[in-house]
């Protein structure tokens, strides 16, 4: 359980209340498939904005466009007022927008602490020359990276596993390592691509609690998730994607009662709440 002492670990910045992330007219075409078709999305800097939709709706594609993994055909992605499209991925991370991956991407041969320390790349700057000759600046920065990463392990209850190769951890713990890596640099916003996929109920519960904690500390969360119970419970806003378009947008309550949404979930042969 994250105690009071760690409650402010993630962000010490004052809370801000405007749309930090604004996606406009985002369109992507893969050959004959229109993966995204003029998608609009706005996410608040201190809310949990969930993106749901049937498989193939374009959720991960949207996350990949926002985080710079590939370039959409048209549209714009503004973050804190700056255009992200065309920027290299590491620059986007440095601007305070980080992400996790649907298919786990921990560095299996590095230990847990090192995995999290890599996340500090976005918030540190010593390059080759400084590192080769181990200038005093490097030592100072390395200490900061390490301390901050250890705090993060503490927050995610991973301290006892700090020196294990990340590849040896349970699936649930590896998901936590990824979260810790995405958050260690104190980003303004984090994109979580299916953080509880494949987890059991207890693990889902833990991750859900941690996501709530992240939000409380003033970090915006964009959550792509199939677990409807979790989405409805923790989201401030839900955006429904279907076949590359925004089908509906609103509070969890509004979405649960939206006839269009119910139709695509039930009509598609998938039971609402169990589609995964």
């Amino acid at each position, binding site marked *: 359980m994250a105690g009071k002492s760690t409650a402010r670990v993630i962000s010490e910045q004052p809370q801000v209340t405007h749309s930090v992330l604004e996606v406009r007219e985002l369109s992507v075409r893969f050959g004959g498939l229109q993966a995204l078709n003029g998608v609009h999305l706005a996410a608040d800097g201190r809310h949990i904005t969930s993106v749901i939709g049937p498989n193939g709706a374009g959720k991960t594609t949207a996350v990949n466009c926002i985080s710079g*993994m590939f370039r959409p055909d048209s549209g714009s992605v503004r973050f804190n007022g700056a255009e992200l499209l065309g920027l290299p991925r*590491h620059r986007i991370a440095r601007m305070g927008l980080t992400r996790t*991956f649907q298919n786990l991407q*921990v*560095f299996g041969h*590095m230990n847990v602490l*090192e995995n999290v320390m890599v996340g500090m790349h*976005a918030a540190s700057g010593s390059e*080759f020359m400084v*590192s080769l000759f181990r200038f005093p600046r490097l030592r100072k920065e390395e200490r900061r990276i390490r301390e901050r990463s250890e705090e993060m392990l503490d927050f995610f209850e991973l301290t006892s596993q700090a020196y294990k190769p990340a590849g040896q951890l349970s699936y649930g713990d590896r998901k936590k390592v990824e979260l810790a890596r995405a958050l260690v640099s104190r980003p303004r916003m984090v994109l979580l691509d299916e953080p509880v996929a494949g987890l059991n109920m207890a693990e889902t519960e833990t991750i859900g609690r941690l996501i709530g904690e992240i939000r409380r500390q003033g970090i915006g969360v964009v959550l792509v998730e199939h677990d409807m119970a979790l989405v409805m419970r923790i989201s401030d806003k839900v955006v429904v994607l279907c076949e590359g378009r925004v089908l509906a947008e609103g509070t969890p309550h509004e979405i649960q009662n939206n006839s269009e949404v119910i139709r695509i979930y039930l009509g598609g042969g998938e039971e609402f709440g169990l589609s995964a």
Partner: protein
Amino acid sequence: MSREGKRFLLGFLLLASAVAALPVWIRNPYYLNVLNVVGLHVLIVVGLNLLIGFAGHISLGHAGFFGVGAYLSGILTGTYGWCPWLTMGFAACLTASLALGIGIPTLRLKGNYLVMATLGFNIIVTVFLLQLDNLTGGPSGYTGIPPLTVFGRSLISDFEFYWLIWGTALVSLVLARNLCHSRVGRGLRALHESPDAAAAAGVPVERYKVKVFILSAVYASVAGSLYAHYYGIITPKTFDIFKSVELVTMCILGGMGTLWGGLFGAVFLTPLPQLLHFFDEYKDIIFGGILLVILIFLPQGLVGWLENRLHALFQNNRR
């Protein structure tokens, strides 16, 4: 100091004392010569290991960079009378820009295009060395390279070069170690395992790959300059594609991704052709065979394998 830092320091002190103690017994110039070549190989392979073992990209052109360093140093000091030490720096800079030119287009692509590009580069270097014979001396080599001087004193004997070469090798090892245990080193290992996740964490993946490639080329270039002044004569054959394969074999035999691996690889494989000189014609086959056997049976290399064995032993005893 961390446990890892202490372990490195211990290993380094052992190595440094071995380096300091060996010439007490070994006075025979032939053995000193072998040790010097080992030292030069250590220098190259430590750099190459940063590229292969950490960033996960293979270069088959490092003998080419080695050659560029050697010939630039040789020709500029021999024919044009440049200052040897300055030329060494100049050669390193020029090699770095060559590596930049190769690295930028190839390392941005996904997949191992660097292997192809460096292979081509090494062949081009060999062709140039052979064909520009009024500059390079062609197949018979370039002679008349002046010795290096330190405080007005010329370094000529194997014994004097021993200190210079091994001193440089030890420094290069420390520098490489510093790099590995910094955010840059972690970034390199991260991009090796998952470029996407590394980039999302803020690691400039392409730039790091290009930079570590340049760094490894500079290591090879410095080794080349030392080689040229040490031997006083250089021939194209020393820098051909087979030499590159040898260097990669040393790296892989010792163990990719551990700094000591390169050292052990160079120590084991350098004397081999000397011991087996009656097999000289089959040298390349033997190296190829070693490479295959290691990759199939000991993919983590000798040092990696040894570490695992010791680790297993240690854990069994604890239970």
